[in-house]
């Protein structure tokens, strides 16, 4: 398929499909994330990218045979490896016997959160999640380093007029979106704080929150959105998220417990766990939401700059 637009649409469908698959495999939290990331944010980013890089692929091909050979070797090795795997769905498989039973049976007494995924994510393996937050922070900083551009104030008016002409056409969209955005933000908060009891948590909430802002930015123009959300302010917010997470860990260090041991946060260990999970989820939410917005703003801002340049050139 040479049309990149179609490729991206189909990969969005793939994201949706795999998310449905995750639901049917009982991985509700993962489905939640994959839906918002795989089908939502990453499709959107790819779209913005192709508006800047061009939409068609060159027909030229090179060494498909070598690639095919590599793929076939790897694939057959994988198939070979599956032969001794425990059967799909078998309850006797080692992974259901060794580490997981403690999570399933004891997490309620030890952490006190009904959603086992949350308790593993935010307490047993909280350090992985810290790493995850840092990864997303790194990505945000990387995109900033690559794409952020100094904006000349003179251009702002031009962009504004450009945007105006574009969104005057979408009156109905804007009205519906205006009604929806507060609801989306509210829903993000619900997901953030309901993560203990159902699917959801900081990451998902952050993505939804960012999605609302992105929707706003698309319909009302980048500059209006920039006026609402200051760029350097949001960078600090991303940093605050990481720091909040880290400082929860440091507090337990200072109190003589191990890093990220929440039981120290309150007199009652279970209450401490609750508080700890709440705080770190908040940190995750902060960072994810602001990094997603940073990434999107930088992509879109770059694009606006490019268009401006083109407009100036053609004049």
């Amino acid at each position, binding site marked *: 398929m040479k049309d990149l637009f179609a490729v991206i649409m189909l990969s969005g469908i793939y994201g949706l499909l795999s998310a449905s698959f995750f639901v049917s495999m009982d991985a509700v939290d993962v489905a939640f994330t994959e839906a918002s990331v795989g089908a939502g944010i990453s499709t959107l980013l790819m779209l913005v990218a192709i508006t800047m890089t061009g939409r068609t692929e060159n027909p030229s091909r090179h060494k498909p045979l070598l690639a095919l050979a590599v793929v076939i070797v790897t694939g057959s090795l994988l*198939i070979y490896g599956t*032969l001794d795997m425990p059967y799909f769905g078998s309850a006797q498989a080692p992974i259901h016997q060794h580490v997981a039973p403690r999570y399933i049976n004891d997490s309620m007494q030890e952490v006190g959160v009904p959603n086992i995924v949350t308790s593993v994510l935010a307490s047993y393996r909280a350090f992985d999640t810290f790493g995850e937050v840092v990864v997303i922070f790194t990505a945000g900083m990387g995109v900033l380093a690559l794409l952020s551009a100094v904006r000349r104030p003179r251009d702002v008016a031009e962009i504004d007029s450009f945007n105006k002409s574009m969104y005057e056409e979408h009156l109905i969209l804007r009205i519906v979106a205006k009604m929806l955005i507060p609801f989306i933000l509210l829903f993000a908060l619900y997901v953030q704080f309901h993560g203990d009891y159902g699917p959801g948590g900081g990451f998902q909430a952050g993505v939804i929150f960012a999605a609302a802002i992105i929707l706003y930015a698309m319909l009302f123009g980048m500059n209006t959105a920039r006026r609402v959300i200051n760029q350097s302010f949001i960078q600090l917010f991303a940093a605050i998220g990481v720091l909040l997470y880290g400082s929860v860990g440091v507090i337990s260090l200072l109190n003589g417990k191990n890093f990220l041991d929440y039981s120290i946060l309150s007199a009652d260990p279970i209450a401490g766990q609750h508080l700890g999970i709440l705080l770190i989820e908040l940190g995750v939410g902060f960072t994810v939401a602001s990094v997603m917005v940073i990434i999107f703003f930088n992509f879109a801002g770059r694009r606006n700059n490019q268009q401006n340049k083109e407009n100036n050139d053609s004049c």
Partner: protein
Amino acid sequence: MLMGLYNYWIVVVLMMVGFYIVIAHGNLIKKIVGLSIFQTSVFIFYISMAKVEGGTAPILAEGIRQYSNPLPHVLILTAIVVGIATTALGLALAVRIKEAYGSIEEEDIQKKDNLDC
């Protein structure tokens, strides 16, 4: 054996489709799409092994005995985040490459590099 493993085989095929796109195609955006397909397939692989016959989602509720394994879910949540981070960075690079080289085809870029040397 066929019934027990077919799920994994499908995953392997999906993985290899993504992998093939990454290494065989010259278009930078397409490579990244391939990469994300490859990664998503690995996620599917992890999630498939967490499934227990007759189990339900690992959120504790009254009257349910059998839960699916929560650990792979946690791992994949982290991996999804890593995936989107990589995608974003890769796309940003592709955009910059387009600005610098005027093309996002591997061959063109290689050609221009050779001219520079």
